[in-house]
């Protein structure tokens, strides 16, 4: 359309018959002004478009950067969480090690002190009765001397396994020292404790000697003590210890009670 108009105007302006006509000069001037405006408008549009494009690219840049940062943050959290988890696991391992006896895997003395102390406090607050038992392998020195230290260790592991495998879920078993073991029997009367410890003594007797001859027959002497409200840890342990030595003196391979 405008092309046709352009052509028409160009022809009219070029036609010599209109030279000197007042409208012709006015048209020529108007046409020139129109051309300038059109050019300005075109430039304006082009510049505006470029701004718009730049803005759009910038926006996409932000989105990209945001995506990248989000991804980094996600990884950071994941790695950091894993470090935390590995520390937690290490912590658990260390705690486990600090509570256990290395040779037998039973609880150690330090851990057991805490548990017995807690039971004594429960009893002092009117909790149910509980008992402890100290057990000592009879003539353990003979095993060590006659069968070698390897056999001695094996014997202790066998005792640990026998005790641990036969106590009830609520009982705790610890290696107290050398060839000495301690049982904690929460919510247990003296009668109940005696029945359990007696069965442990029997079990050990049945299990030894090892059929392949690697271990001699073994027996244990036990001293059982019931805790009394107001008793200290030391007093309670001394009672079990006294009973255990009583069992030894009476000929070993038996269970004695602290009177």
């Amino acid at each position, binding site marked *: 359309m405008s092309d046709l108009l352009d052509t028409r105007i160009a022809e009219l302006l070029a036609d010599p018959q209109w030279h000197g006509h007042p409208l012709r000069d006015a048209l020529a001037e108007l046409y020139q002004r129109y051309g300038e405006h059109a050019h300005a408008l075109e430039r304006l549009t082009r510049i505006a478009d470029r701004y718009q494009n730049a803005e759009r690219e910038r926006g996409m840049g932000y989105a990209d950067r945001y995506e990248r940062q989000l991804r980094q943050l996600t990884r950071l959290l994941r790695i950091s969480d*894993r470090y935390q988890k590995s520390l937690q696991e290490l912590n658990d391992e260390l705690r486990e090690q600090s509570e256990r006896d290395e040779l037998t895997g039973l609880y150690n003395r330090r851990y057991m002190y805490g548990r017995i102390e807690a039971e004594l406090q429960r009893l002092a607050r009117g909790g149910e009765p509980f008992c402890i038992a100290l057990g000592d392998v009879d003539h353990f020195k003979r095993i060590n001397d006659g069968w070698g230290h390897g056999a001695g260790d094996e014997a202790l592991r066998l005792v640990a396994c026998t005790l641990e495998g036969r106590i009830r879920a609520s009982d705790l078993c610890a290696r107290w020292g050398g060839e000495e073991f301690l049982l904690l029997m929460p919510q247990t009367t003296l009668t109940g404790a005696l029945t359990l410890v007696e069965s442990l003594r029997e079990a050990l007797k049945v299990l030894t000697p090892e059929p392949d001859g690697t271990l001699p027959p073994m027996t244990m002497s036990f001293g059982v003590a019931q805790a009394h409200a107001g008793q200290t840890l030391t007093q309670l342990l001394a009672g079990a210890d006294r009973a255990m030595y009583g069992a030894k003196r009476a000929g070993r391979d038996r269970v004695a009670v602290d009177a």
Partner: protein
Amino acid sequence: MNELNIIATNSTPMIRTDGASGTLQLAGDSYPEHAFEFFAPLLAWVKQHLAQTDAPLRLELALLYLNTSSVRILMDILDQAEEAFQAGRDVSLTWRYDSDNERVAELAEEFREDCSFPFTIEACETR
């Protein structure tokens, strides 16, 4: 270039640089109280090394525990290393760990995920 030779403490790693060979060593635990301050000289070294030389970048790591800020900083360094590698620089990383502690290897693998430069995770025998 300003070389670094920082001795390890209980909570900060050993940091050692050698601009000529482009080697950067980090070893030990890293949970500094002010991680960004602590690592600022290291970040400056990496930036300068990459901007002002064409030397390779060899990262030799034997890191154990890293707190979150340290993870963040290491990720930044690895990103810069990756960028340099993409631009044609000779970049490599070796992460050594005690064969007793597989956890360290698993974490090193996490870091490796976004890196396309040679990234070796190497078990060492326990002393």
